[in-house]
């Protein structure tokens, strides 16, 4: 294992982002959980991206004039949509967190437990 290889750097970054993301997701306030989700998203996106294997200086832009190597375009397309969708998801989650905080003045993610009044429909 060469600690200076790109593969090692990327893999360790994925591992750290995943770990940090999971740790923050397990916190009890909305804001750290959102941060954790963001970190986990980075981790997952890089993971997906790296499944195409890593190449330097080989963007998947076809070169009409020379026969050159290209990196795998498919994970890139997947990750591109994943980035945009995760923005949408983050926005919704942030909004829900904000609305919940403003309505209840409390940003704990665990719901207070009320025994539901089981109303027998008469």
């Amino acid at each position, binding site marked *: 294992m060469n600690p200076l*290889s*790109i*593969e*090692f*750097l*990327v*893999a*360790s970054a994925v*591992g*750290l*982002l*995943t*770990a*940090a993301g*999971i*740790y*923050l*997701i*397990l916190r009890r*306030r909305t*804001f750290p959980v959102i*941060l954790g989700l963001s*970190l986990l998203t980075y*981790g997952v996106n*890089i993971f997906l991206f790296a499944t195409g*294997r890593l*190449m*330097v200086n080989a*963007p*998947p*832009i*076809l070169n*009409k004039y020379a026969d050159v190597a290209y990196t*795998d*375009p*498919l994970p*890139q397309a997947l*990750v*591109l949509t994943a*980035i*945009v*969708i995760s923005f*949408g998801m*983050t*926005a*919704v989650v*942030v*909004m*829900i967190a*904000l*609305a919940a905080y*403003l*309505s209840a003045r409390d*940003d704990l*993610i*665990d*719901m207070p437990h009320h025994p*539901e009044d*089981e109303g027998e*429909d008469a």
Partner: protein
Amino acid sequence: MSLFLIAALPFLGAVFPALLIRAGRNASASAAGLTTFLAFAGLLLHAPAIFRGEVIQVGVDWLPALGLNANFFLDGLGFLFASMILGIGLLIILYARFYLSREDPMGQFYTYLLLFQGAMVGITLSDNILLLLVFWELTSLSSFLLIGYWKHLPEGRQGARMALAVTGSGGLAMIGGMMILGNITGSYDLSVILQNKELIQASPLYLPALVLILVGCFTKSAQFPFHFWLPHAMAAPTPVSAYLHSATMVKAGIFLMARLWPVLAGTPEWFYIVATTGLVTMLLGAVIALFKDDLKALLAFSTVSHLGLITMLLGFGTKIAAVTAVFHIINHATFKAALFMSAGIVDHETHTRDINRLGGLRHLMPVTATIAIVAALSMAGIPPFNGFLSKEMMLEETVHTHWGSSAYLVPGLALLAALFSAAYSFRFIGHVFLGQPRNDYPAKPHDPGFGMWAGPALLMILVVLIGLFSATLVGPLVAIAAGAVIGGAELPYYSLKLWHGLTPALYMSGVAVAGGLLLLLLHRPLMAAWNAALRPEAKQIFDRLMRGLTKLSQLITDGLHNGAITRYAFVMMLFIIALSYYAYSSGTIQAPTRLAQTEGPIALIAWFCLIVATLAVVAKHRQRQLSLVLIGVVGLVVSLGFNYLSAPDLALTQLSVEVVTMILLLLALNFMPKDSPIESPLWVRLRDGGIAVIAGLGAATLIYMLMLRDFSMPSISEFHLANSYKGGGGTNVVNVILVDFRGYDTFGEIIVLGIAALVIYALTEAVLGTRVRAYLLNRKPDMPQAGDAHPMMMVVATRVMMPLALMVAAYIFFRGHNLPGGGFIAGLITAIALLMQYMASGFSWASERQRMFYHGTIGSGVLIAAATGLGSWFGGVPFLTSAFGYIHWPPLDEFEWATAALFDLGVFLAVVGAVLLALESLARFAWQPGISSEHAMDINPARDDLEQAQLQAQAPGKHPGLQAPGPHDPSTKGEV
């Protein structure tokens, strides 16, 4: 008329009553009536062919892989039921027009009724049992709506729920049975299944299939012990009871038993289950009916009893019994629908259905009395009405039937049931219509208008005519329907006539009538004894069962789902780790096939930044603003990394998303606490840290191993690289994948993005509609505010940059097909350019000047993308196939056009709209009245002089600078 159309007409027509109710109740009723009439006429057009013995079939493959095909067929049995459903439906529609009062929403009623009618017709015409199941469930649902039509009545709601619970669970059982049946024969088409009697009956799964299907039929047709829901469904308006509970829905179970009779009947299992259930139900229903004081309850239990009779006949498994069953189905539908409608008239006019409060109505409502008495005599089995004929044939059959070794059990019990049946019919006549008129009716009774009694009168005429001329009138119908029931085998000898000679059945009939009269005379003491007796009350048992089930499911739900999201996340992580460990320990690892690539110092520095920033986010996550800055560093390094690793498109996207996300989070943080308190004890944090480290190590190892090995299977990426230019006309393969190869995914994605933005908008609307708005308006900022909310430097800078930014966006957009860029990135850049205006000049200023309606932007984006996709249909190619070409206009360089660019425009618009709608919604939380700077950046020194001059003129002698609140007053609160 095509069978498709007949089955579809009620569903299509269901829209109109609800719409036309605005034009009046007559319009609504006419629409419903016309729809039904059209379908009925279409059905009758097939009559000649059906009577010639033909079977009409149509079908299209719907989901052939599942064996689910939209196949319909019409034979004698289907024709009989469909004509009953549509014919009586027509009468019911007429009757309901006059029955429902002004307060009742009539449009809704007819819509539900037509939905129900369509579902019923669908059942009778289906050739595919999966399709039949779909219609079967639809009848359960639509009858739920009809029974609960009077929402204000608790009995109506409870009755509807009970009916749905019972028939719905029966339907579930039937799905199982049908699946087994389909598996045995290898086809879900009825016409195939019906040919495979030996195969089915020899199968070891015959009994389970039989039981499951019968549970479905028995629940639907209210057979013992599932009979209890039917009387409770009587809380529905009478037209519903007359329709659903006499002629149609409860006959669906009977229909299915008849339909599957050729393959399921004839075995001892069939006989003992079906005939016994029918016999018990017939007797039980008849006995209970005698002791019901509510007119509709009496009729309901009588219906239960008659359904039992038909079930028993089908259960006998002989051909002649099947013929009798078909004949009784016709007779029961005519007299029972007439009786229900008469009972409804009595209820409508006297305002009571309690038999104890009625009597002597013969004098006050002669028309209704005639109809009801004739129908009730038919129900009692009195000649010359039609009920007599089929009851005679039924009794005749029981005489020839042995149960076990006993020859007397079946005829004896059937006789007893007939006796009780006669008794309750006589009671219905005697205690309601005969006797002296009373003077204490809740309302003064009189005959209703023609519209209301026309339907039952027509049915009464049928009752008489079928009784007198049965062979001519319904003989052919019985023949073709019974022929279909017994599966095309030759019909046995029978004759539909009043006088069969002195048969045992005739003696039995005589005993039943005499006994019935005797019971009526003894009714008072019998009733007292009945009331004193201990009886299990079905509704209480049902309610207790339901309460128990509700408690149980609540217990399970509360146990698993206690609202602690942290716990869910924790359990989920543990589970994923366990799964991964299982995958790891059960797999093998090949030797590496790729060499790791060494790297220079720059990548190392970036990596170092990322690691430090990530660790710092975790360490400093309690200081929320600081952690936002740190996470920005992470995002930046990730973007740079993408760029370095040959993914320029990703780098651009990540970078612009990063900006938007930061703005979003900052906006939200403005209203939230700036710190997180320490809440979890140390051991919890250590535990979570442990989980996180294990997961992180797992992910890192997995991807590291992956990156050092080649694909185990050839990748489809090669195809994309090879065809991107040839097929998609672009050299940026990632963009071509997005807008062409996988355009459908992208299309779905922009819809999701649009939905997310709309959710955010709706949430904002909802939250700002509550007292949150007051809180926001009165809220004191918890952080020091900027001296100037809209500093001039920033205002100037953003306005200068705006056209530049838009230009860049346009450039990125247009080059996207061939070079890094495209609709997503251009959309994000445009959104950022506009957001900068909001930030610099203020929300009010910006929203006054922007002409874009973001909802519309999202919508037009999606529509443009869809239209581009649909456009390829005109070229005769599949959805979203792109076309492209090259144009050369001198002196410009050659350039390319591609429909994919149009699709990308849709993506662009959707992204712009979604991002701006989301952030604008969030910004509205910050809005406060009167904070917009009056002249956000009009740099006009002359105005300052002018204002000062005015102020000086107003307040001479005072220093102007101290009291003039200028446009840049530090007290103006910050926004956006």
